C-alpha cells in the first residue's frame, strides 16, 4: 500500500465501498448471464476496481470520463446508481439509456460519464474533445479517458495525444493494462513501451500499481490538480488484472491464461482485500465494519437487480425516438 496523502477516514471508506459495489455489481451481472437472464454478453471489471475508484475519487461530477466495453466499474465509480445500471443491462426503460445502450454503451451524463464504447479506443477522441471544451470554455474541468492495453494499438490514440500535447489539454489518458487483449497477451500485441509512447509525444507519463487504490488515488489527485492548472495532458499506465474471462462467456480460457496465474493475482493482489487489510491494520476500521459494508452492498445489489428484473421494457414506440434531437420519431422524419 502506498502511503496515504492524508488520513481521511471518510474518503477511505467511500473508496472501499465503491470497490465493493463494483465487485458486487459484477458478481450479480455474471449470475444474470449464467442464469440466462441477461441479453447479450458483458465484460466484467472485477479485479480492476482500484483503477476506476482511485481515479474517479479524484474527480468531481463536472469532470468527464469516457469508458470502455469493460465499463461497469467506471460507471459505478463515477457515481452511477446500481438500479439504473441493472435496468440498462436488462434493456429496461428505467436504464440510464432507456435500454437502448446496454452494457457496452452505459452512460451517465449526470455524473459526467460520457459513456462506455463498443469500439476499442472509440472514445479517445471524445475524452480529448471534452478536454478541449474545458479549455475553450475555461471551465477548469478535466477529462479522463479510460482504455485497455489492447486499445493502445489503435492509431487514434496517437493522433489525439499529439493534439492534446500541442494544445496542452486537461486530459488524462488512463491505460488499464490488465495483461490481455481478448485472448492474447499484451506482449504479443504491443511492441516497445506504452509510457515511452506517450513521452515521445511530450506527454508526462506514469506507471502505477493499479491494484493499490491509494497509490492510484494519490497520483490521480496530483495529476488532476495539475491538469486543472493547465499542465496536462498526462498518461498513466495502471498495472492490473481482470479476474473473469474476456467476457462472461469466455469460460474455458486455459489455452491463453493459466488458472494458477489467476489464483495468484486474486490471492496476493486483490485490491479490495488488500485495502481492507490496510484499513484494519491502520486502525481506521474494524473487521466488523468491513463485513457490514459488504453486507450492505450485497443488499443494495440484490434490491437493485430485483427492481430491474421487474421493471418494464421501453414501449415499442420508442424504437425510432432519440435518433435525432428535436425529432420525435425518426421514421416520420427522414
Amino acid at each position: 500500500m502506498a502511503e496515504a496523502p492524508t488520513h481521511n477516514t471518510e474518503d477511505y471508506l467511500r473508496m472501499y465501498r465503491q470497490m465493493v459495489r463494483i465487485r458486487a455489481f459484477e458478481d450479480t451481472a455474471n449470475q444474470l448471464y449464467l442464469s440466462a437472464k441477461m441479453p447479450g454478453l458483458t465484460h466484467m471489471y472485477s479485479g480492476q476496481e482500484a483503477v476506476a475508484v482511485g481515479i474517479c475519487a479524484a474527480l468531481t461530477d463536472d469532470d468527464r470520463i469516457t469508458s470502455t466495453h469493460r465499463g461497469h466499474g467506471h460507471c459505478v465509480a463515477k457515481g452511477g446508481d446500481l438500479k439504473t445500471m441493472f435496468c440498462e443491462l436488462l434493456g429496461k426503460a428505467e436504464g440510464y439509456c432507456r435500454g437502448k445502450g446496454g452494457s457496452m454503451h452505459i452512460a451517465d451524463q449526470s455524473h459526467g460519464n460520457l459513456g462506455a464504447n463498443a469500439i476499442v479506443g472509440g472514445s479517445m477522441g471524445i475524452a480529448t474533445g471534452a478536454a478541449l471544451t474545458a479549455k475553450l470554455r475555461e471551465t477548469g474541468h478535466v477529462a479522463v479517458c479510460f482504455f485497455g492495453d489492447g486499445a493502445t494499438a489503435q492509431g487514434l490514440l496517437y493522433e489525439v495525444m499529439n493534439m492534446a500535447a500541442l494544445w496542452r489539454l486537461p486530459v488524462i489518458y488512463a491505460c488499464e493494462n490488465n495483461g490481455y487483449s481478448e485472448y492474447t497477451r499484451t506482449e504479443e500485441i504491443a511492441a516497445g513501451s506504452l509510457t515511452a509512447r506517450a513521452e515521445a509525444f511530450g506527454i508526462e507519463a506514469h506507471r502505477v500499481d493499479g491494484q493499490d487504490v491509494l497509490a492510484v488515488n494519490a497520483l490521480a489527485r496530483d495529476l488532476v490538480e495539475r491538469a486543472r492548472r493547465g499542465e496536462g495532458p498526462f498518461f498513466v499506465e495502471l498495472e492490473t488484472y481482470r479476474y473473469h474471462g474476456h467476457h462472461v462467456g469466455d469460460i474455458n480460457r486455459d489455452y491463453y491464461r493459466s488458472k494458477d496465474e489467476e489464483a495468484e493475482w486474486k490471492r496476493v493482489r486483490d485490491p479490495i482485500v488488500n485495502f481492507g487489510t490496510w484499513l484494519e491494520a491502520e486502525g481506521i476500521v474494524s473487521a466488523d465494519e468491513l463485513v457490514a459494508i459488504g453486507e450492505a452492498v450485497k443488499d443494495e445489489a440484490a434490491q437493485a437487480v430485483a427492481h430491474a428484473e421487474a421493471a418494464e421494457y421501453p414501449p415499442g414506440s420508442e424504437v425510432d425516438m432519440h435518433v435525432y434531437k428535436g425529432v420525435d420519431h425518426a421514421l416520420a422524419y427522414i
Partner: protein
Amino acid sequence: MSRETTLSKAVNEAIAEEMRRDPTVFLLGEDVAEAGTPFKVLSGLVEEFGTGRVIDTPISEPGFVGIAVGAAMTGTRPIVDLMFGDFLYLVMDQLCNQAAKSYYMSGGKLNVPMVLRTNMGATRRSAAQHSQSLQALVAHIPGLKVAMPSSAYEAKGLMKTAIRDDNPVVIFEDKLMYQDKAPVPEEEYLIPFGEAAIKREGGDITLIGTSSMVQVALKAAEALSAEGISAEVIDPRTLVPLDEETLVRSVKKTSRAIVIDEGHRNYGVTGEIAARLNERAFYHLDAPVLRFGAMDVPVPFSPALEDLTVPTPEAVAQAARTLCRGELIHAA
C-alpha cells in the same frame, strides 16, 4: 436586398455570422486558420475570431473528428473542416459509430451538435482520391443529416441551419462551384432541412438534381424547352431528411422523372430516390424513373477520361427526350 456572392463567400459569411451569434461555435481542421483552407473558403475568420476559435490541426482526420464529437457532447458546437470529401473514409468510425449513434445509444442524453463540412465533385483533374462524391455513404447512416447546397444561396442558408442543429450534420460543397455566384440576401435567412426547392416549374418531366447536378438539370431543361418539352427541376437540398412529398407531388404531375447525383450510380443516392418515387407515384408514372450518377469507376486523372464519368446536360436532355417520347430505354 440581394447581391451576387460566390459560394465560397456565402459559406464564409454563414460561419462568421453564427460564430458572432454563438460563442460556443468554433472551427477545427487542417490549415483553416492563416491559410483559410486550400480553397480559401475560411479566409479572414482567424483574424476576426482568433486561433482559439479557428483551430489548425495536424493531419489527423479521425483524431480531430473524434475531438469534435467530444467537444460537441460537452457544450460546444464545432464545425469540422474536412479538406476533401474523399477523406470521409478516414473518419467514418468517429462519424458513424460515434457521432451518429450517441444520442440514440444514450437514450436521448448525449447529443452531438456538430457540422462536418466537406466537398465533392470531379473534373478538377485531381484523380481517384480527390474527386469522389461520397454523400451516399453518410446518407445511409441513421443519426446523420446530410445537406447538399446547389448554389451560394443554399450554401449559406443550409450552413446556418446546420450550425444550429442539435445533431451531427454533414454538408457537401461542390469544390468546382466555390467561385460560382448567385443572389444572396443581405438579411439573415436560414433554409430549413427537408424542404426541397423547385428551381424551375414544368409539366412534362421532373428532373431531380443534387448539388451541382441542379445546374446540369437546369441546362437540360433549357435545352428541352426549346423543343417544347417542359421540365420541372427540383433540388432536394437535404438528402436526410428528404422532402419526399415535394418530389412525389411533382412526379405525380409530370409522370416522368430523372434523378441526377454526382456520386457513383451503383448503390448510391439515385437508387433510393428512384425507388421512393416508384413506390409512391408508381400508378402515375408513364415510364421508369431514370438515374444519372458518376460512372462506376474510380475517377480517372486523364482529362480525356474524366470528362466521360460525370453526368452532362446533353445526356440528361437526351434521356428526358426519350422518356417523353414514350420510348423504352435504359439509363446511361
